Protein backbone atom coordinates (compact mmCIF):
# COMPACT_ATOMS: atom_id res chain seq x y z
CA UNK A 1 0.00 0.00 0.00
CA UNK A 2 1.18 3.44 -0.93
CA UNK A 3 1.96 5.48 2.21
CA UNK A 4 0.40 8.92 2.32
CA UNK A 5 2.85 11.66 3.26
CA UNK A 6 3.89 15.10 2.17
CA UNK A 7 6.51 13.45 -0.06
CA UNK A 8 3.98 11.24 -1.85
CA UNK A 9 1.83 14.33 -2.28
CA UNK A 10 4.67 16.26 -3.93
CA UNK A 11 5.67 13.27 -6.05
CA UNK A 12 2.12 12.79 -7.33
CA UNK A 13 1.77 16.48 -8.04
CA UNK A 14 4.29 16.02 -10.85
CA UNK A 15 1.97 13.52 -12.53
CA UNK A 16 -1.11 15.72 -12.06
CA UNK A 17 -2.37 13.38 -9.30
CA UNK A 18 -3.35 10.84 -11.94
CA UNK A 19 -1.19 7.99 -10.68
CA UNK A 20 -2.41 7.53 -7.11
CA UNK A 21 -3.15 3.90 -6.22
CA UNK A 22 -6.77 3.03 -5.61
CA UNK A 23 -7.46 3.38 -1.88
CA UNK A 24 -9.27 0.04 -1.87
CA UNK A 25 -10.00 -2.64 -4.46
CA UNK A 26 -13.36 -3.58 -5.91
CA UNK A 27 -13.29 -7.39 -5.53
CA UNK A 28 -15.93 -9.89 -6.60
CA UNK A 29 -17.17 -11.86 -3.60
CA UNK A 30 -15.44 -15.17 -2.88
CA UNK A 31 -17.44 -18.31 -2.12
CA UNK A 32 -16.37 -18.43 1.50
CA UNK A 33 -14.94 -16.18 4.19
CA UNK A 34 -13.88 -16.73 7.81
CA UNK A 35 -15.93 -13.70 8.84
CA UNK A 36 -18.49 -11.62 6.96
CA UNK A 37 -19.39 -8.17 8.27
CA UNK A 38 -22.68 -6.80 6.97
CA UNK A 39 -22.62 -3.03 6.70
CA UNK A 40 -19.81 -0.94 5.25
CA UNK A 41 -20.22 2.02 7.55
CA UNK A 42 -17.88 3.22 10.25
CA UNK A 43 -18.61 0.37 12.64
CA UNK A 44 -18.40 -2.37 10.00
CA UNK A 45 -15.17 -1.10 8.46
CA UNK A 46 -13.58 -0.55 11.89
CA UNK A 47 -14.58 -4.09 12.90
CA UNK A 48 -12.94 -5.52 9.76
CA UNK A 49 -9.81 -3.47 10.41
CA UNK A 50 -9.45 -4.62 14.03
CA UNK A 51 -10.21 -8.24 13.07
CA UNK A 52 -7.23 -8.10 10.74
CA UNK A 53 -4.96 -6.02 12.95
CA UNK A 54 -5.67 -7.34 16.45
CA UNK A 55 -6.79 -10.89 15.70
CA UNK A 56 -4.95 -11.67 12.43
CA UNK A 57 -8.21 -12.71 10.77
CA UNK A 58 -7.84 -11.38 7.24
CA UNK A 59 -10.15 -13.64 5.24
CA UNK A 60 -12.95 -11.15 5.89
CA UNK A 61 -15.58 -9.53 3.70
CA UNK A 62 -17.45 -6.32 4.38
CA UNK A 63 -20.77 -6.41 2.52
CA UNK A 64 -22.39 -3.06 1.79
CA UNK A 65 -25.78 -2.51 0.17
CA UNK A 66 -24.86 0.91 -1.20
CA UNK A 67 -21.43 2.50 -1.14
CA UNK A 68 -19.13 2.62 1.87
CA UNK A 69 -19.58 5.72 3.95
CA UNK A 70 -22.99 6.47 2.44
CA UNK A 71 -24.98 5.83 5.60
CA UNK A 72 -24.74 7.38 9.01
CA UNK A 73 -20.93 7.61 8.96
CA UNK A 74 -21.37 10.24 6.26
CA UNK A 75 -24.48 11.83 7.75
CA UNK A 76 -23.60 12.50 11.40
CA UNK A 77 -22.49 15.76 12.98
CA UNK A 78 -19.02 14.35 13.80
CA UNK A 79 -19.06 14.81 17.57
CA UNK A 80 -16.67 12.74 19.67
CA UNK A 81 -17.11 12.62 23.44
CA UNK A 82 -17.15 10.32 26.43
CA UNK A 83 -19.21 12.38 28.90
CA UNK A 84 -21.26 9.48 30.22
CA UNK A 85 -22.33 8.80 33.77
CA UNK A 86 -22.66 5.03 33.82
CA UNK A 87 -19.46 3.00 34.09
CA UNK A 88 -20.16 0.78 31.08
CA UNK A 89 -20.75 3.74 28.76
CA UNK A 90 -17.96 5.85 30.24
CA UNK A 91 -15.22 3.21 30.11
CA UNK A 92 -16.20 2.07 26.64
CA UNK A 93 -16.17 5.55 25.17
CA UNK A 94 -13.06 6.70 27.04
CA UNK A 95 -11.29 3.66 25.58
CA UNK A 96 -12.49 4.98 22.22
CA UNK A 97 -11.14 8.48 22.97
CA UNK A 98 -7.64 7.01 23.18
CA UNK A 99 -8.12 5.30 19.82
CA UNK A 100 -9.31 8.60 18.34
CA UNK A 101 -6.20 10.42 19.52
CA UNK A 102 -3.90 8.12 17.52
CA UNK A 103 -6.23 7.39 14.64
CA UNK A 104 -4.67 9.62 11.99
CA UNK A 105 -1.20 8.13 12.62
CA UNK A 106 -2.47 4.58 12.93
CA UNK A 107 -4.51 4.69 9.74
CA UNK A 108 -2.05 6.90 7.84
CA UNK A 109 -5.10 8.98 6.94
CA UNK A 110 -5.83 12.43 8.30
CA UNK A 111 -9.15 12.12 10.12
CA UNK A 112 -8.76 15.70 11.37
CA UNK A 113 -9.56 14.80 14.97
CA UNK A 114 -9.87 18.13 16.71
CA UNK A 115 -10.35 18.00 20.51
CA UNK A 116 -12.02 21.35 20.89
CA UNK A 117 -14.31 20.51 23.80
CA UNK A 118 -18.02 20.15 24.42
CA UNK A 119 -20.34 22.02 26.78
CA UNK A 120 -23.75 20.74 27.89
CA UNK A 121 -25.71 23.78 29.05
CA UNK A 122 -27.69 23.80 32.30
CA UNK A 123 -30.72 25.98 32.99
CA UNK A 124 -31.63 25.38 36.63
CA UNK A 125 -30.02 24.63 40.00
CA UNK A 126 -31.37 21.09 39.77
CA UNK A 127 -29.72 20.58 36.42
CA UNK A 128 -26.44 21.95 37.77
CA UNK A 129 -26.66 19.38 40.58
CA UNK A 130 -27.31 16.61 38.07
CA UNK A 131 -24.33 17.75 36.00
CA UNK A 132 -22.11 17.88 39.11
CA UNK A 133 -23.08 14.28 39.75
CA UNK A 134 -22.40 13.23 36.16
CA UNK A 135 -19.11 15.15 36.15
CA UNK A 136 -18.00 13.40 39.34
CA UNK A 137 -18.89 10.02 37.85
CA UNK A 138 -16.87 10.88 34.76
CA UNK A 139 -13.86 11.92 36.81
CA UNK A 140 -14.01 8.67 38.78
CA UNK A 141 -13.60 6.95 35.42
CA UNK A 142 -10.63 9.13 34.52
CA UNK A 143 -12.52 11.39 32.11
CA UNK A 144 -11.96 15.14 32.22
CA UNK A 145 -15.13 16.90 33.37
CA UNK A 146 -15.39 20.54 34.35
CA UNK A 147 -18.46 22.11 35.91
CA UNK A 148 -18.74 25.65 34.58
CA UNK A 149 -20.71 28.46 36.17
CA UNK A 150 -22.58 31.09 34.18
CA UNK A 151 -19.61 33.46 33.95
CA UNK A 152 -17.28 30.71 32.80
CA UNK A 153 -19.71 29.65 30.09
CA UNK A 154 -20.03 33.28 29.03
CA UNK A 155 -16.28 33.49 28.46
CA UNK A 156 -16.43 30.55 26.06
CA UNK A 157 -19.63 31.42 24.17
CA UNK A 158 -20.14 35.18 24.66
CA UNK A 159 -22.43 35.36 21.64
CA UNK A 160 -25.11 33.22 23.32
CA UNK A 161 -28.16 34.91 24.78
CA UNK A 162 -27.29 35.42 28.46
CA UNK A 163 -30.29 37.58 29.32
CA UNK A 164 -32.18 36.50 32.41
CA UNK A 165 -35.73 36.83 31.14
CA UNK A 166 -35.47 34.05 28.55
CA UNK A 167 -37.30 30.75 28.85
CA UNK A 168 -34.09 28.83 29.60
CA UNK A 169 -31.54 31.16 31.20
CA UNK A 170 -27.99 29.77 31.21
CA UNK A 171 -27.00 28.73 34.74
CA UNK A 172 -23.78 26.99 33.72
CA UNK A 173 -22.74 23.81 32.04
CA UNK A 174 -20.75 20.64 32.11
CA UNK A 175 -17.70 20.63 29.87
CA UNK A 176 -15.49 17.85 28.59
CA UNK A 177 -12.45 19.71 27.20
CA UNK A 178 -10.99 16.59 25.54
CA UNK A 179 -14.12 15.99 23.43
CA UNK A 180 -14.11 17.17 19.85
CA UNK A 181 -14.93 16.55 16.23
CA UNK A 182 -13.37 14.70 13.30
CA UNK A 183 -13.78 14.41 9.56
CA UNK A 184 -16.38 11.64 9.36
CA UNK A 185 -15.83 10.50 5.75
CA UNK A 186 -12.10 10.22 6.41
CA UNK A 187 -12.81 7.80 9.25
CA UNK A 188 -14.67 5.44 6.90
CA UNK A 189 -12.07 5.81 4.14
CA UNK A 190 -9.13 5.43 6.51
CA UNK A 191 -10.45 2.20 8.02
CA UNK A 192 -11.47 0.89 4.59
CA UNK A 193 -8.06 1.56 3.08
CA UNK A 194 -6.15 -0.12 5.93
CA UNK A 195 -8.52 -3.08 6.13
CA UNK A 196 -8.25 -3.56 2.36
CA UNK A 197 -4.45 -3.47 2.53
CA UNK A 198 -4.50 -6.31 5.07
CA UNK A 199 -6.64 -8.49 2.80
CA UNK A 200 -10.22 -7.60 3.71
CA UNK A 201 -12.62 -7.63 0.74
CA UNK A 202 -14.85 -4.56 0.67
CA UNK A 203 -17.83 -5.49 -1.47
CA UNK A 204 -20.13 -2.62 -2.38
CA UNK A 205 -23.52 -2.63 -4.10
CA UNK A 206 -24.20 -6.01 -2.55
CA UNK A 207 -27.47 -6.39 -0.66
CA UNK A 208 -28.10 -9.20 1.80
CA UNK A 209 -31.28 -11.05 0.87
CA UNK A 210 -31.25 -13.94 3.34
CA UNK A 211 -29.36 -16.10 5.79
CA UNK A 212 -28.58 -19.80 5.94
CA UNK A 213 -28.99 -21.30 9.38
CA UNK A 214 -28.54 -25.00 10.15
CA UNK A 215 -29.24 -26.48 13.58
CA UNK A 216 -28.96 -23.11 15.31
CA UNK A 217 -25.69 -22.24 13.57
CA UNK A 218 -25.15 -19.64 10.90
CA UNK A 219 -23.59 -21.14 7.78
CA UNK A 220 -23.79 -18.37 5.22
CA UNK A 221 -25.78 -15.65 3.61
CA UNK A 222 -27.46 -14.93 0.32
CA UNK A 223 -26.76 -11.65 -1.41
CA UNK A 224 -27.63 -9.86 -4.63
CA UNK A 225 -24.15 -10.89 -5.83
CA UNK A 226 -24.39 -14.57 -4.98
CA UNK A 227 -24.26 -16.86 -1.97
CA UNK A 228 -21.40 -16.55 0.49
CA UNK A 229 -20.49 -19.16 3.08
CA UNK A 230 -19.24 -18.09 6.49
CA UNK A 231 -19.41 -19.51 10.00
CA UNK A 232 -19.22 -16.06 11.56
CA UNK A 233 -21.37 -13.13 10.51
CA UNK A 234 -21.48 -9.72 12.19
CA UNK A 235 -24.33 -7.26 11.74
CA UNK A 236 -23.34 -3.57 11.71
CA UNK A 237 -26.29 -2.11 9.84
CA UNK A 238 -27.57 0.62 12.20
CA UNK A 239 -30.98 1.78 10.99
CA UNK A 240 -31.47 -1.35 8.86
CA UNK A 241 -31.03 -3.69 11.84
CA UNK A 242 -34.74 -4.47 12.06
CA UNK A 243 -34.94 -5.23 8.34
CA UNK A 244 -32.27 -7.93 8.69
CA UNK A 245 -33.65 -9.08 12.05
CA UNK A 246 -36.92 -9.84 10.28
CA UNK A 247 -35.07 -12.11 7.84
CA UNK A 248 -33.58 -13.86 10.90
CA UNK A 249 -36.97 -14.15 12.68
CA UNK A 250 -35.63 -12.03 15.50
CA UNK A 251 -37.43 -9.23 17.32
CA UNK A 252 -35.08 -6.71 18.92
CA UNK A 253 -35.39 -3.91 21.48
CA UNK A 254 -34.72 -1.49 18.62
CA UNK A 255 -36.84 0.96 16.68
CA UNK A 256 -35.71 2.79 13.57
CA UNK A 257 -36.18 6.54 13.63
CA UNK A 258 -35.10 9.45 11.52
CA UNK A 259 -32.69 12.14 12.70
CA UNK A 260 -31.99 15.28 10.73
CA UNK A 261 -29.09 17.66 10.73
CA UNK A 262 -28.32 20.83 8.81
CA UNK A 263 -25.49 23.22 8.04
CA UNK A 264 -25.51 26.94 7.44
CA UNK A 265 -23.49 28.89 4.94
CA UNK A 266 -19.84 29.12 6.03
CA UNK A 267 -18.84 32.07 8.19
CA UNK A 268 -15.67 33.18 9.93
CA UNK A 269 -14.72 31.33 13.15
CA UNK A 270 -17.25 32.15 15.85
CA UNK A 271 -17.74 28.95 17.84
CA UNK A 272 -14.79 27.00 19.16
CA UNK A 273 -16.25 23.77 20.48
CA UNK A 274 -19.51 21.85 20.57
CA UNK A 275 -22.45 23.29 22.52
CA UNK A 276 -25.55 21.29 23.40
CA UNK A 277 -28.75 23.03 24.44
CA UNK A 278 -30.79 20.07 25.63
CA UNK A 279 -33.67 22.17 26.91
CA UNK A 280 -34.03 23.68 23.44
CA UNK A 281 -33.52 20.36 21.62
CA UNK A 282 -30.52 21.78 19.81
CA UNK A 283 -26.78 21.31 19.48
CA UNK A 284 -24.20 23.06 17.36
CA UNK A 285 -20.57 23.15 16.33
CA UNK A 286 -18.64 24.93 13.61
CA UNK A 287 -16.92 22.91 10.92
CA UNK A 288 -13.41 23.61 9.68
CA UNK A 289 -14.98 25.13 6.58
CA UNK A 290 -16.91 27.55 8.79
CA UNK A 291 -20.38 26.07 8.40
CA UNK A 292 -22.48 25.96 11.55
CA UNK A 293 -23.36 22.26 11.94
CA UNK A 294 -26.63 21.79 13.79
CA UNK A 295 -29.00 19.09 14.86
CA UNK A 296 -31.64 18.29 17.42
CA UNK A 297 -34.60 16.00 17.84
CA UNK A 298 -35.67 12.90 16.02
CA UNK A 299 -38.51 13.40 13.56
CA UNK A 300 -40.57 11.57 16.13
CA UNK A 301 -42.12 8.55 14.40
CA UNK A 302 -40.71 5.30 13.01
CA UNK A 303 -39.05 6.06 9.70
CA UNK A 304 -36.76 4.53 7.10
CA UNK A 305 -37.03 7.51 4.80
CA UNK A 306 -33.46 8.90 5.16
CA UNK A 307 -34.95 12.31 4.61
CA UNK A 308 -36.86 14.41 7.04
CA UNK A 309 -39.81 16.68 7.45
CA UNK A 310 -39.73 20.43 7.80
CA UNK A 311 -41.50 20.83 11.19
CA UNK A 312 -38.56 19.19 12.97
CA UNK A 313 -35.96 21.41 11.30
CA UNK A 314 -38.10 24.41 12.17
CA UNK A 315 -38.36 23.26 15.80
CA UNK A 316 -34.61 22.64 16.07
CA UNK A 317 -33.67 26.00 14.56
CA UNK A 318 -36.18 27.82 16.75
CA UNK A 319 -34.23 26.48 19.71
CA UNK A 320 -30.99 27.41 17.99
CA UNK A 321 -32.03 31.02 17.43
CA UNK A 322 -33.17 31.25 21.06
CA UNK A 323 -29.68 30.31 22.22
CA UNK A 324 -27.62 32.03 19.52
CA UNK A 325 -29.67 34.93 18.09
CA UNK A 326 -27.02 35.55 15.39
CA UNK A 327 -28.09 32.31 13.69
CA UNK A 328 -31.26 34.02 12.44
CA UNK A 329 -29.08 35.97 9.96
CA UNK A 330 -27.53 32.86 8.43
CA UNK A 331 -28.83 30.97 5.42
CA UNK A 332 -29.17 27.22 5.71
CA UNK A 333 -27.16 25.41 3.06
CA UNK A 334 -28.28 21.81 3.44
CA UNK A 335 -30.46 19.56 5.54
CA UNK A 336 -30.31 15.80 5.47
CA UNK A 337 -31.41 12.79 7.47
CA UNK A 338 -30.19 9.40 8.54
CA UNK A 339 -31.98 6.45 10.10
CA UNK A 340 -31.07 5.61 13.68
CA UNK A 341 -31.21 2.28 15.46
CA UNK A 342 -32.83 3.59 18.64
CA UNK A 343 -32.45 1.14 21.51
CA UNK A 344 -34.92 0.99 24.37
CA UNK A 345 -32.48 2.41 26.94
CA UNK A 346 -30.39 4.68 24.73
CA UNK A 347 -27.29 2.48 24.97
CA UNK A 348 -25.88 0.16 22.32
CA UNK A 349 -25.88 -3.62 21.94
CA UNK A 350 -22.64 -5.47 21.06
CA UNK A 351 -23.23 -9.12 21.74
CA UNK A 352 -23.58 -12.67 20.56
CA UNK A 353 -27.06 -13.89 19.66
CA UNK A 354 -29.01 -17.10 20.18
CA UNK A 355 -27.82 -18.14 16.70
CA UNK A 356 -24.32 -19.58 16.90
CA UNK A 357 -21.91 -17.49 14.84
CA UNK A 358 -24.23 -14.52 14.46
CA UNK A 359 -23.05 -11.35 16.21
CA UNK A 360 -25.01 -8.18 16.72
CA UNK A 361 -23.79 -4.58 16.81
CA UNK A 362 -26.63 -2.07 16.96
CA UNK A 363 -28.60 0.34 19.12
CA UNK A 364 -26.29 3.31 18.60
CA UNK A 365 -29.19 5.75 18.73
CA UNK A 366 -27.70 9.04 17.57
CA UNK A 367 -24.30 8.58 19.17
CA UNK A 368 -22.70 6.06 16.89
CA UNK A 369 -19.97 8.17 15.35
CA UNK A 370 -17.89 8.72 18.48
CA UNK A 371 -17.99 4.98 19.18
CA UNK A 372 -16.71 3.86 15.77
CA UNK A 373 -13.22 2.84 17.01
CA UNK A 374 -14.31 1.37 20.37
CA UNK A 375 -17.24 -0.44 18.75
CA UNK A 376 -15.05 -1.86 15.99
CA UNK A 377 -12.40 -2.91 18.49
CA UNK A 378 -14.77 -4.67 20.90
CA UNK A 379 -16.94 -6.17 18.16
CA UNK A 380 -13.84 -7.62 16.48
CA UNK A 381 -12.87 -9.13 19.86
CA UNK A 382 -16.37 -10.53 20.38
CA UNK A 383 -16.35 -12.15 16.92
CA UNK A 384 -12.77 -13.41 16.98
CA UNK A 385 -12.89 -14.86 20.51
CA UNK A 386 -16.59 -15.77 20.43
CA UNK A 387 -17.01 -14.00 23.76
CA UNK A 388 -17.62 -10.41 24.77
CA UNK A 389 -14.79 -8.21 26.02
CA UNK A 390 -15.15 -6.64 29.48
CA UNK A 391 -15.57 -3.27 27.74
CA UNK A 392 -18.79 -4.38 26.04
CA UNK A 393 -20.18 -6.89 28.51
CA UNK A 394 -22.65 -4.24 29.71
CA UNK A 395 -24.00 -3.88 26.18
CA UNK A 396 -25.68 -7.26 26.24
CA UNK A 397 -28.78 -8.13 24.27
CA UNK A 398 -30.50 -9.71 27.26
CA UNK A 399 -30.01 -6.76 29.62
CA UNK A 400 -33.55 -5.64 28.87
CA UNK A 401 -35.22 -8.84 29.99
CA UNK A 402 -32.79 -9.10 32.93
CA UNK A 403 -33.36 -5.53 34.07
CA UNK A 404 -29.78 -4.29 33.77
CA UNK A 405 -30.64 -1.26 31.69
CA UNK A 406 -28.12 1.44 30.82
CA UNK A 407 -30.62 4.26 30.66
CA UNK A 408 -28.20 7.19 30.76
CA UNK A 409 -30.96 9.80 30.53
CA UNK A 410 -33.66 7.91 32.40
CA UNK A 411 -36.07 8.32 29.50
CA UNK A 412 -37.57 4.86 29.31
CA UNK A 413 -38.72 3.06 26.22
CA UNK A 414 -40.25 5.89 24.21
CA UNK A 415 -37.38 5.98 21.76
CA UNK A 416 -38.90 8.75 19.69
CA UNK A 417 -38.72 11.34 22.48
CA UNK A 418 -35.16 10.59 23.52
Amino acid at each position, binding site marked *: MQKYSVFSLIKNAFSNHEKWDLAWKDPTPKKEYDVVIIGGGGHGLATAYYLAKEHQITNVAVIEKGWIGGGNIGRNTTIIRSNFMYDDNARFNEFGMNLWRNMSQELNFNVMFSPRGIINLAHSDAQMNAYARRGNSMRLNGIDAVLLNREEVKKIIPMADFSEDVRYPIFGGLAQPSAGTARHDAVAWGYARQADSMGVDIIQNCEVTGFDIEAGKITGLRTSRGDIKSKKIGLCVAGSTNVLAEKLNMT*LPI*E*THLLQACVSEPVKPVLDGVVTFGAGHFYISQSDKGEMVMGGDLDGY*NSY*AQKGNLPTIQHVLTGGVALFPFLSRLKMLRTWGGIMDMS*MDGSPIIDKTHIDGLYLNCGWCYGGFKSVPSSGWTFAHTIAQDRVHELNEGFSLNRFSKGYLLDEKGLGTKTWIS
Partner: protein
Amino acid sequence: MLNIKCPYCGDRSQKEFAYGGDGTITRPKLNQEISDEEWDNFVYLRKSPRGKHIELWHHIAGCRQWFKVERDTATHEIFRTFKPEEEF
Protein backbone atom coordinates in the same frame (compact mmCIF):
# COMPACT_ATOMS: atom_id res chain seq x y z
CA MET B 1 -45.15 17.43 6.59
CA LEU B 2 -47.60 14.65 7.32
CA ASN B 3 -51.29 15.30 6.96
CA ILE B 4 -53.11 13.06 9.39
CA LYS B 5 -56.82 12.41 9.30
CA CYS B 6 -58.02 12.26 12.88
CA PRO B 7 -61.01 9.86 12.91
CA TYR B 8 -62.84 12.36 15.12
CA CYS B 9 -61.83 15.72 13.59
CA GLY B 10 -60.70 15.09 10.01
CA ASP B 11 -57.53 16.18 8.16
CA ARG B 12 -55.07 18.11 10.28
CA SER B 13 -51.39 19.03 10.18
CA GLN B 14 -48.84 16.75 11.81
CA LYS B 15 -48.02 19.57 14.23
CA GLU B 16 -51.28 18.94 16.13
CA PHE B 17 -50.35 15.35 16.94
CA ALA B 18 -48.06 13.46 19.26
CA TYR B 19 -46.71 10.04 18.38
CA GLY B 20 -47.51 7.04 20.55
CA GLY B 21 -45.44 4.23 19.06
CA ASP B 22 -46.25 0.74 17.84
CA GLY B 23 -50.02 0.24 17.93
CA THR B 24 -49.94 -3.56 17.82
CA ILE B 25 -48.47 -4.08 21.28
CA THR B 26 -50.90 -5.41 23.85
CA ARG B 27 -50.34 -5.33 27.58
CA PRO B 28 -50.36 -8.73 29.33
CA LYS B 29 -53.68 -9.48 31.05
CA LEU B 30 -54.05 -8.29 34.62
CA ASN B 31 -54.24 -10.64 37.64
CA GLN B 32 -52.43 -13.46 35.89
CA GLU B 33 -48.98 -14.94 36.18
CA ILE B 34 -46.79 -13.08 33.67
CA SER B 35 -43.46 -14.50 32.58
CA ASP B 36 -40.33 -12.39 32.12
CA GLU B 37 -40.51 -13.18 28.43
CA GLU B 38 -44.02 -11.75 28.17
CA TRP B 39 -42.95 -8.55 29.93
CA ASP B 40 -39.90 -8.33 27.65
CA ASN B 41 -42.14 -8.64 24.60
CA PHE B 42 -44.53 -6.01 25.89
CA VAL B 43 -42.06 -3.46 27.20
CA TYR B 44 -39.01 -3.70 24.94
CA LEU B 45 -39.31 -5.75 21.78
CA ARG B 46 -40.52 -4.03 18.62
CA LYS B 47 -40.74 -5.17 15.00
CA SER B 48 -40.22 -1.66 13.61
CA PRO B 49 -40.90 -2.80 10.04
CA ARG B 50 -39.84 -1.04 6.88
CA GLY B 51 -43.18 -0.64 5.17
CA LYS B 52 -46.67 -0.78 6.64
CA HIS B 53 -46.75 0.05 10.35
CA ILE B 54 -49.75 0.29 12.66
CA GLU B 55 -49.10 3.02 15.19
CA LEU B 56 -50.76 5.14 17.85
CA TRP B 57 -51.16 8.87 17.50
CA HIS B 58 -52.59 11.37 19.97
CA HIS B 59 -54.48 14.43 18.73
CA ILE B 60 -52.94 16.39 21.56
CA ALA B 61 -53.56 19.89 20.22
CA GLY B 62 -57.06 18.99 19.09
CA CYS B 63 -59.67 16.61 20.45
CA ARG B 64 -57.06 14.84 22.65
CA GLN B 65 -58.21 11.42 21.49
CA TRP B 66 -55.87 8.51 20.83
CA PHE B 67 -56.28 6.65 17.55
CA LYS B 68 -54.44 4.32 15.21
CA VAL B 69 -52.75 5.03 11.91
CA GLU B 70 -51.57 2.65 9.22
CA ARG B 71 -48.54 4.33 7.64
CA ASP B 72 -45.63 3.32 5.42
CA THR B 73 -42.39 3.96 7.32
CA ALA B 74 -40.38 4.36 4.11
CA THR B 75 -42.67 6.61 2.09
CA HIS B 76 -44.78 8.11 4.93
CA GLU B 77 -47.92 7.34 2.94
CA ILE B 78 -50.88 7.07 5.30
CA PHE B 79 -53.25 4.30 4.22
CA ARG B 80 -55.94 4.75 6.83
CA THR B 81 -56.66 6.02 10.32
CA PHE B 82 -59.10 4.40 12.70
CA LYS B 83 -60.44 4.48 16.27
CA PRO B 84 -58.63 2.19 18.72
CA GLU B 85 -61.69 0.03 19.29
CA GLU B 86 -62.08 -0.61 15.57
CA GLU B 87 -60.54 -3.95 14.75
CA PHE B 88 -57.65 -3.97 12.34
